[in-house]
């Protein structure tokens, strides 16, 4: 899966990941490989990412929108 986290001012993260956990407005949710196409709003909080090297880390994000399609995850935050 390829993840991109983008704000209007810079690209915050871009790379291969195996798991992403996001603070959705209806509660936290995780995205794994071959997730169904999804569009969701997220709120301010922490994003959990496990990258291609199985290393886990967190990113602080504010409100935004995430789109998942064909194993491409794009998180647009403001």
């Amino acid at each position, binding site marked *: 899966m390829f993840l991109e986290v983008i704000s209007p*001012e810079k690209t915050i993260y871009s790379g291969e990941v195996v798991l992403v956990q996001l603070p959705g407005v209806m509660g936290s949710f995780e995205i794994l490989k071959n997730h169904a196409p999804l569009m969701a*709003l997220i709120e301010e909080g922490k994003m959990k990412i496990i990258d291609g090297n199985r290393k886990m880390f967190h990113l602080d994000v504010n409100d935004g*929108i995430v*789109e998942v399609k064909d194993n491409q995850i*794009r998180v647009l935050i*403001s």
Partner: protein
Amino acid sequence: MANLREVRTRIASVKSTRQITSAMKMVSASKLRKGQNAIESLRYYADHLKDIKNELSKTVSLKQGHELTTMIESKKALVVICSSNKGLCGPYNTYIIKKAKSYINWLEEQKLEVSLYIIGKKANDFFKKHQYEIIHFDQNILEKANFENSKEVAEHLKTLFLEQEFARVDAVYNKFKNAVVHEPIAKKILPIDIFNEEKARDEQNSFDEEEHLKHILEPSQEKIVNYIVPKVFDVEVYRILLDSYTSEQGARMTAMHQATENASELIKDLTLTYNKARQAAITRELVEIVSGAEALK
């Protein structure tokens, strides 16, 4: 022949002017680079936002109108004009004012009452003198144009549009092309024509609607549309401010580059004059000494 001392002072003064213009050029060049990077990042974000918007228009019908995309029956129009606070940037402000004036005339021909929302001192000076109706003037936003600040401007414009019932909001600004080329343009920013292109396309390909991927939408289609539409507007306003800022720096850099070159040219001419005068003075002195010595024999 020119006075030696006079020429010397002029050379010194032109030299110090050249130092200033060349420093201003450097400053603008670095600000220009910053602006260009910001535009690049924003473009990346805006492209993705547009992708999502397009994707959304495939999955859901967007017939329901958002308040920012709905036309209001009204005789009022608001024009946002982006100029600079400082001069010394060539014809940058002249162009923008000319464009704004002709655009305002065009709107007035459509029987609209035009109010102005001005960013940057230079346009404010001009339009105040010519007694246009200015409802807001902001001179600090350009120097600190980041997304956070431009969101405030966007918020302000949205409130004006919704509460004071403007039929349309337009922006006149310099579109940044590259360091030397920028083009003054006028563009409608509210109500947003956001889904028009999609609607037109949807009517064409309505038959393969079934083939489109259906996204899971969370929390709801309405909430997502309500998030995306204002976001598109925020991004638009930010882009306008960035384009203006970057074009201004580009214009200033070009103008100051020209000024520095002119100063160098002038120094060359003056040095030539100075040397000629100096040589003439030496020759004259020599002639005096020689003829004095001659006379003593």
